[in-house]
């Protein structure tokens, strides 16, 4: 006997947005973005009030002049892409990462010493997690070589891998950096693999010789810098309280002038009183000549003097949006803009990432300290509480699993109804630990901010896809996400 099934339809989980006069859906469980037509919008409108039967939806479309075949085709497309769903609402199961995840990047903290004494530093400041007492201050060559061997072994199957040099102040151990580059390049070449390098520095110790070396070896450089002197010198100071701007300015200019093989980027830490995003951007991009400038608010307990309060973050968001509009204008003309917070997000939207964890920490990325202790990332280096083993003995799989289980989006119930979760996944593990004492806690203090920023980037993505889609192709091979 043949039976006719009556199905009830309701809306799937998506975030609707507009850009360039068109309508789009960001389908949250998949991370997929679709441009949709009037008919789809009409069905969404009809279902916004609640559930409906197939015939009701057909009637909605028929009223708009859709023929039966076209209307049922439209509903079928919406159903298969899960813009609409049938049956009882059930949470999407979240996949776990593979048990053995090959390493891609190793962050080597060549030293935990620094010649600056920036007030907000997460390694030395009031909220530090590091416990460096009694441990080596500088990494030695044996530990460094063992770390490189560790990376090559743990990244089996990957054609290209990456080392980031970090500190303390990375360049305080430049002799070791040089040796590691030579050793790792030889080793990788002998395995017919490709390795590349980058470093983060405060730029105080840059010399023409160092700049030449960095350029010759195509080493990516990120300079930690907070803007023009009156902003930069507020917290980026030497131990005697003197600002570091005057020391680094000529060195940064020489770096940008002399390093021709990789674009030089600046990384700005926003703090209370250092939130003039646009002015900072103009100075670093236009006056100093950085290729890209990225911003992040300081990681701190909320009661520190340099912590940015909610109002301050609101101001940051407004300025982010203005710069994002400028980014969009550039993109529509086919020009690059240096606001890397937008390009990073567009890159992830292009791929349609759907993260199980906020970042690669303890998955594709690990940090290693001067003592050889392994950490989930550079921010946890030298912390006994967060250690995941040692280079000499390998990764403690149980601790790694505990860290990853805590940080998994499936364990962050607050995130389960949020449309920004495919990109955010609860936010930085270290930020969470400093704020809530648990690396697996969702960073609830940023939720509204992140949602609004994600929506802004989605609208930019939609507008570019409508008006200059070719621009997005540059994101096809970014960050090894493909």
């Amino acid at each position, binding site marked *: 006997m043949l039976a006719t099934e009556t199905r009830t339809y309701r809306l799937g989980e998506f975030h609707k947005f507009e850009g360039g006069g068109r309508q789009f859906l960001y389908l949250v469980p998949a991370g997929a973005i679709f441009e949709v037509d009037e008919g789809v919008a009409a069905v969404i409108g009809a279902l916004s009030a609640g559930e409906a039967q197939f015939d009701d939806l057909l009637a909605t479309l028929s009223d708009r002049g859709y023929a039966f075949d076209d209307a049922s*085709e439209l509903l079928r497309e919406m159903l298969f*892409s899960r813009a609409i769903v049938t049956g009882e609402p059930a949470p999407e199961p979240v996949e776990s990462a593979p048990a053995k995840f090959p390493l891609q990047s190793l962050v080597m903290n060549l030293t935990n010493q620094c010649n600056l004494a920036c007030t907000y530093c997460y390694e030395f400041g009031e909220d530090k997690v590091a416990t460096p007492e009694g441990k080596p201050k500088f990494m030695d060559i044996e530990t460094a070589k063992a770390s490189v061997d560790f990376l090559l072994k743990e990244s089996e199957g990957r054609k290209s891998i990456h080392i980031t040099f970090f500190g303390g102040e990375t360049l305080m151990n430049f002799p070791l950096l040089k040796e590691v580059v030579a050793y790792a390049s030889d080793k990788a070449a002998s395995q017919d693999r490709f390795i590349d390098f980058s470093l983060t520095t405060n730029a105080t110790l840059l010399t023409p010789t160092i700049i030449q070396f960095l350029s010759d070896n195509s080493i990516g450089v990120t300079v930690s810098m907070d803007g023009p002197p009156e902003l930069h010198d507020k917290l980026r100071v030497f131990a005697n309280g003197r600002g570091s701007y005057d020391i680094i300015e000529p060195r940064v200019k020489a770096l940008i002038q002399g390093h021709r093989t990789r674009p030089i980027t600046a990384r700005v830490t926003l703090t209370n009183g250092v939130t003039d995003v646009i002015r900072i951007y103009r100075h670093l991009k236009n006056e100093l000549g950085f290729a890209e400038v990225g911003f992040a608010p300081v990681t701190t307990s909320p009661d520190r003097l340099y912590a940015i309060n909610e109002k301050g973050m609101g101001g940051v968001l407004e300025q982010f949006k203005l710069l994002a509009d400028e980014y969009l204008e550039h993109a529509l003309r086919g020009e690059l803009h240096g606001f890397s917070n937008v390009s990073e997000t567009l890159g992830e939207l292009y791929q349609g990432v759907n993260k199980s964890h906020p970042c690669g920490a303890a998955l594709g990325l690990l940090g290693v300290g001067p003592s050889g202790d392994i950490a989930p990332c550079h921010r946890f280096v030298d912390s006994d509480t967060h250690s995941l083993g040692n280079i000499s003995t390998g990764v403690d799989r149980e601790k790694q699993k505990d860290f990853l289980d805590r940080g998994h989006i499936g364990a962050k119930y607050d995130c389960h109804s949020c449309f920004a979760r495919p990109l955010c996944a609860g936010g930085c593990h270290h930020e969470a630990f400093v704020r809530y004492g648990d690396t697996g806690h969702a960073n609830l203090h940023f939720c509204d901010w992140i949602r609004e920023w994600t929506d802004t980037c989605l609208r930019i993505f939609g507008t570019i896809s409508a008006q200059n889609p070719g621009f997005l192709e540059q994101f096809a091979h970014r960050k090894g996400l493909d």
Partner: protein
Amino acid sequence: MKHLRAINKKARRVDNYVASLAEDVVGLQNNQNPTPQQRPHVPMGCALAFSPGWEVDSAGGTAGLCQPVERDIYDCYVTCFWPSQVPDHLNNYPDWASKCAAATKDWRNLDLVFP
């Protein structure tokens, strides 16, 4: 897809998935009138009943079929309009199956008829 245009990589994967469903091959597919989604061509007649009984099981006998072979006789007798090799219960042999309440058990009680 026609009404949803994929604009990122993940959306293109969804799109390909939906397209692969449309290109799927279905039983009794009707290619003379292709639709975006293939639907089965449902013929009239007993071919749509797929009753076991005219078939054999994996051992070549009838013991392992999912329904008893005897049940099949009623498919022709009751539900099918097509004249077949069972007695005509409407006019000439109304009591042909009256002693057979459950075909599985009572099939031996079916009357023989001599037209």
